[in-house]
């Protein structure tokens, strides 16, 4: 069973979407670890490693994504978790999406995305993390 981390970076307290997605992914058969609110990049990277997840979903509506997402990607790399696919959503202007893709964030879900779209994307794009040899 694929393990997905759903995380809320930064001080943003809007968790409606993250909780719905976490639950929808769980209902779709994935194992989901929801971090809860107010996660620092360090905390997210640590959770990703400790929970040995296959993918990470980041939810942010505060406008701080252009600082926090790069910081998270760096921490993940530093923890040896740089290969874990990362997707995100929330309030992320189209102008920023390209920058985020360049950083290595594979997919940004815009407002209006259905839970099924997200489930399908995870099914199609997330493979079990490979064992370190």
């Amino acid at each position, binding site marked *: 069973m694929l393990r997905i981390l759903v995380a809320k970076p930064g*001080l943003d307290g809007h968790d409606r979407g993250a909780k*719905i997605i976490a639950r929808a992914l769980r209902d779709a058969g994935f194992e989901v670890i929801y971090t809860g609110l107010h996660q620092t990049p360090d905390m997210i990277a640590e959770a990703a490693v400790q929970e040995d997840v296959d993918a990470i979903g980041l939810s942010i509506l505060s406008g*701080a994504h252009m600082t926090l997402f790069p910081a998270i990607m760096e921490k993940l790399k530093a923890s040896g978790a740089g290969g874990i696919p990362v997707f995100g959503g929330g309030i992320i202007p189209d102008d920023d999406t390209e920058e985020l893709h360049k950083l290595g964030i594979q997919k940004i879900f815009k407002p209006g995305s259905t839970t099924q779209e997200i489930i399908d994307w995870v099914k199609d794009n997330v493979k079990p993390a490979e064992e370190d040899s």
Partner: protein
Amino acid sequence: MGSDPIAKRNRRRPARRHATISGTELDPVYGPETGVSDPGRPGQYPFTRGVYEDMYRGKGWTMRQFAGFGTAADTNQRFRYLLSEGMSGLSTAFDMPTLMGFDPDAERAMGEVGREGVSIATVEDMEELFDGIRLDEVTTSMTVNCTAPVLLAMYLVVAERQGVTWKDLGGTLQNDMLKEFIAQKEWICPPRPSLRVVTDIIEFCTKEVPRWHPVSVSGYHIREAGSTAVQELAFTLADGIGYVEAAVARGLDPDDFGRRLSFFFNVHNDFLEEVAKIRAARRMWARIMRERFGAKTDRACMLRTHAQTSGAALTAQQPLNNVVRVTVQALAAVLSGVQSLHTNALDETLALPTEEAATVALRTQQILAEETGITNTVDPLGGSYAVEALTDRMEEEATAYIERIDEMGGILEAIEKGFPQQEIAEAAFEFQAASDEGDYITVGVNGYQSGEHDREVEILKIGLEIEDRRRQEVGARKRERDAGALDAALEEVGRAARGTDNLMPAIIDAVRASASVGEISDVFREEFGVYSDPAWL
């Protein structure tokens, strides 16, 4: 897709349900046989038809637009612009670090400074925020919760420095921690010490700032988090009950502080339900204050409320449509008899409002006030079979929820168990599923999507240089202060926190010594502990 994808996509779908998004089924028609309560008269207990006899004929609602971004100077400019365009009251949006008790130079503030609101760290920032605005000439609402005592203290010190006495100050502090744990999720300390702080503020203001509303008991955020309309109504009033109980336990008189409790509701899409909701709220609160708490005066039984049109109901797609949504929602607010109103800007789903979008939002209210004629008679929908039936029904259903919360031991216990939080999460999940299924159509999102006129709107961008600037400014200010005076003042806050003295005098003294939001919050962290999100789904 079929042979003509455009025609197929835009075909009118048959209505599949006759229910509000909250799940309230509406009857095909309501008539005299429905048997509804007599709504009474406006200005008379229990105020179903309005808190005042003349309502907008006597005094229009306050047009109070929530605003704030970047630096105090940026927001001061937006405040003065909106006031010059006819806004009648100020409403302040603070950034996440300010709201969560972090200074701009704190690590946790990284990326967040000036983004969701204005960055305020010390009283000097607050002075700049109100530069050129006399605090005895405006009323100001401040949307702040766990750091509310600090921001209030700053406002009081600014007033002092302007030569305005506290007894002349009018305004509102949101200061509603119960709904933070339920919905908005801005916290520092656990629920019980948070409630102590809220009560300290109620007690302090009742004595020292008597025109001030020390709490704005809020349903807006509960609804935005995905609750139904009935849950919004029930949990808000349950929170209100919690505050009144705490104030009474403190020895305060409901007829005294009760007159300055204010409320804040959402105005969402389901027009008739929203009007009914506010009317039911007035009737329920009046009865609660009189029957449960023994309030003798009418004034203490009046539910006076601000309202904001729903942000969650707006769309990122085809943003011009949002002007229409906000207009319909604002119409419901006015027809329901609110005292104060914020209308969202069309770009709300994309960023903080541009000046142009904020102007259209304000004009929406002005057009309703000046051009529709609905202000010329009180509660014009009163007596409508549908509206009275819905009012009764909402009262009944919300009362049942409050009874359940009573059985749990009250709202604090219910929050600690996660009851309202989980009800909301359930309702949010159900709505999403129904929307994904196409049971509810959101125009431009899952119906009537068009590539053609989905116009890009220019959005407000907050540059990262603001964060750098704020870090430097605040760092410099901290170095320039009298460190001895500051330490002594913070020590006093700690002492008050450990004991039972009201925290406000010590916080005001600390603020006078240029203590920062972060520094005072650190005292709270030290003395009251740090709350951690239970992460219920």
